């Protein structure tokens, strides 16, 4: 399909058929997939869905031709602003390079898991949406854009169908940037998608509801994208202390708002709600290693997420500056970021040039610090407590986008018996996204969860299954270590949808939970497998 066809007047441009999808590995090679649930008629009337029959944004259809025209003009205005230094100094140079230099060689397509796993649907090629944007810019925003437009390859019609489909299409890429890593000329079609989302959000007020209204807005309003308020977090931490005592027999006081502590530790607040054993494990390890740290209960101080990273520079900057301000007020020497991939990238890397250097606080990955704890010998680990096969998922934001590759491997090799750790292929900086990147793990509007299950998460599920081939007997318990909240959310959803634990014995957890499980002075297993509680009963 040529990119120009995006403006075609048709009910639906592309349909995802389950029979087109690449098969999954054993024991799923003949698995009967559940197709994408079609939107109901009333939803179809209300929401834009003409791209692929999927609505991630629940984007309302314009009610009048005038409204359509206004929205198309707003899109064009936003695209123009994206190419000015005043409005987009943050990404102007990389954007303009990617706008101008694509050689259309399609090398990026084979690197993209969404394209591959969709059954190679053209609309999901990294170049497809980027080319549409390039063509619109050339035809409508450059001088003489109409001259020989067809011959020059940018004769595209800009209408509401194009804009609406682009809006949805910008939420069919996980921003894993595998495409950029293989481009022979350095073009970054992942960045093009990031910038496209910015037009919709910053100019038109259109974004995934879970990452804007229920995401960064809630974060700035209540203190956390989970809706957890500053008062509630202190209560939850008290519960965690009780749970720690119950699980370990240790009375550990989790330090809160401690001025002058060495470290401000920031978790993804989703951990407190969905995986409380993760912040508990951090508390146990930091206590045992004698680390001088604190958590914060200030607004946004206990939630490391920064959803702006995916769609909106202004929201991004607001949250990042809050994090730095809290650390400065506490007088800590560094911020350590818990097991949250995008928080790593947001605060350590992207936010690095938001303030003059003297106002920056050093940021460090928890992976690095945890590895240091292991190497220091302050905590004794008994690898035989983790005597089961384990594989490691590399969160894109931490690994390909930050270059933290070795520490997590050194930790796993220290806390597992020899031969128990196996790599996925490919891994490290060449890894595949979990399928929940760029906000997908939390996005659940419309029938989008079906698309995530069938398309964006399919490659990772294949990798996980492949990592354990030959030991698929469900009685052999196997673990995926996924040290990132977002990835854990996506992997949990995939494992549950496909009943992977029941069929193969594969489950998932974070890295710190595995560390605590292997601690010599941890009497009871810290790790919980599905069905463990039932066994206790």
């Amino acid at each position, binding site marked *: 399909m040529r990119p120009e066809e995006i403006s075609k007047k048709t009910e639906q441009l592309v349909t995802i058929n389950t029979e087109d999808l690449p098969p999954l590995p054993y024991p799923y090679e003949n698995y009967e997939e559940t197709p994408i649930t079609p939107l109901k008629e009333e939803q179809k009337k209300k929401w834009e869905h003409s791209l692929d029959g999927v609505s991630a944004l629940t984007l309302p259809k314009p009610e009048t031709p005038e409204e359509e025209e206004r929205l198309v003009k707003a899109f064009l*205005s936003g695209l123009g602003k994206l190419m000015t230094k*005043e409005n987009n*100094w943050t*990404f*102007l*140079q*990389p954007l*303009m390079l990617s706008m*101008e*230099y694509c050689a*259309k*060689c*399609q*090398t990026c*397509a*084979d690197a993209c898991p969404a394209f591959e796993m969709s059954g190679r649907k*053209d609309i999901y*090629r990294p*170049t497809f949406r980027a*080319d549409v944007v390039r063509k619109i810019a050339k035809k409508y925003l450059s001088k003489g854009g109409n001259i020989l437009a067809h*011959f*020059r*390859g940018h004769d595209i019609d800009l209408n509401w169908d194009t804009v609406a489909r682009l809006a949805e299409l910008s939420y069919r890429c996980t921003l894993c940037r595998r495409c950029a*890593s*293989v*481009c022979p000329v*350095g073009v*970054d079609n992942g*960045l093009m998608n990031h910038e496209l989302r910015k037009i919709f959000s*910053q*100019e038109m*007020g259109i974004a995934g509801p879970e990452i*804007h209204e229920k995401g960064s807005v809630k974060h*700035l*309003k*209540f203190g956390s994208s989970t809706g957890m308020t500053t008062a509630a977090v202190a209560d939850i931490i008290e519960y965690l202390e009780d749970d720690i005592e119950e699980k370990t027999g240790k009375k550990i006081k989790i330090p809160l708002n401690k001025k002058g502590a060495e470290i401000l530790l920031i978790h993804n607040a989703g951990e407190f709600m969905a995986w409380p054993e993760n912040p508990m494990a951090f508390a146990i390890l930091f206590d045992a290693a004698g680390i001088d740290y604190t958590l914060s209960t200030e*607004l946004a101080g206990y939630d490391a997420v920064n959803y702006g990273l995916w769609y909106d520079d*202004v*929201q991004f*900057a607001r949250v990042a500056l809050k994090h730095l301000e809290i650390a400065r007020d506490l007088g800590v020497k560094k911020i350590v970021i818990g097991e949250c991939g995008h928080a790593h990238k947001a605060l350590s*890397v*992207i936010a*690095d*040039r938001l303030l*003059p*250097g*003297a106002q*920056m606080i*050093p940021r*460090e990955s928890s992976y*690095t610090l945890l590895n240091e704890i292991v190497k220091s010998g302050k905590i004794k680990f008994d690898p035989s407590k983790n005597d089961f096969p384990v594989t490691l998922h590399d969160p894109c934001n931490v690994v*390909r*986008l*930050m*270059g*933290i*590759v*070795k*520490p997590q491997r050194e930790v796993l090799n220290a806390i597992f018996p020899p031969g128990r750790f196996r790599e996925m292929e490919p891994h*490290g900086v060449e890894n595949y996204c979990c399928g929940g990147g760029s906000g997908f793990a939390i996005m659940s509007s419309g029938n989008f969860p079906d698309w995530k299950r069938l398309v964006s998460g399919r490659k990772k599920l294949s990798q996980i299954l492949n990592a354990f081939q030959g030991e698929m007997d469900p009685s052999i318990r196997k673990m995926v270590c996924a040290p990132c909240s977002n990835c854990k959310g996506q992997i949990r959803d995939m494992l549950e949808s496909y009943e992977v634990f029941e069929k193969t014995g594969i489950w998932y957890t974070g890295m710190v939970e595995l560390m605590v499980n292997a601690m010599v002075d941890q009497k009871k297993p810290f790790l919980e497998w599905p069905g463990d509680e039932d066994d206790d009963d």
Partner: protein
Amino acid sequence: MGFLQILTYLSGLVFVIGFAAKLLKYATMPMHVRWELYPIPHEGKEWGGSFYEEIDHWKKTRHIDHMAQYRFMVPEILFIRALHEDNRSLWYWSFPFHMGLYLCIGGLVFLGLGALVQIFGMAPENSALASLLQSLTTVFAVPGYILGTIGVVGLTVKRMTDSGLADVSAGIDFMNLIWLGLLFVTGFIVWLQDPGFLVSRAFFQSLITFGPMTEPMGAIHVVNLLLFIGFWAYFPFTHMTHMVSKYFMWDKVKWDDDPNKGDAGMDSKIKKYLAYPVTWAAAHVGAEGGKKNWADVATSNPWENKDQK
């Protein structure tokens, strides 16, 4: 001085101005936020690691491995390693095409040097140096024509027959390939007619001395020259200048991992950018049509202290 010489000077001028303008455009853009991608060769970690793997990394002196960067860049530039690794079927045609171009450029350089020494009285028939330059011109240019032609034919066929490529190809893409193909083919025919590049060297000599042509130029040679002159002037305005993007996109974006440690230059840029007015129109931005700057909008929190529970 003849018409062809004047056209060549003009084409060269357009090339220089166009290329410089392009370089200047990207070089003067604001410093962007970091958006690097690993592996970064100068980190010197073959597994793709970075300084973030070290505890308290900001307290340590960073080691930049320049040699590792060169070890990466040379095969990348000469052999298009990225394509070899990730798109082999295209590499089979793209590599001869690019190598053909490199060799032809090399041949052109030796042709120019040959013309220069000829001005000082050293001709191939009476000078070992001139004779060597003449041989090098042939050794570079002729395989260049052949490889370039193979590449052009292969790329054109592939672009027409591979649906993924055909869908994104436009008339201009085929025109560019055919233009270069004609340049290679006519160059080869010129060489067949004039194996010692006598006429070409004489033309080069006339360009350097602003003097008259001493050798008559055949029709096919004129066509070859016009194709070259035209392409030279056209080139800076196309995406084919991707050596520019490669430098900026790789060195200044993908590999730009310079941490912000309070460098005065970086600080002054950041301060300047934070004062830029913002005109994004979405309500939550609160830009007020450019009345607010980046510092204003980034430090505001429209939702703070509202509905706090």
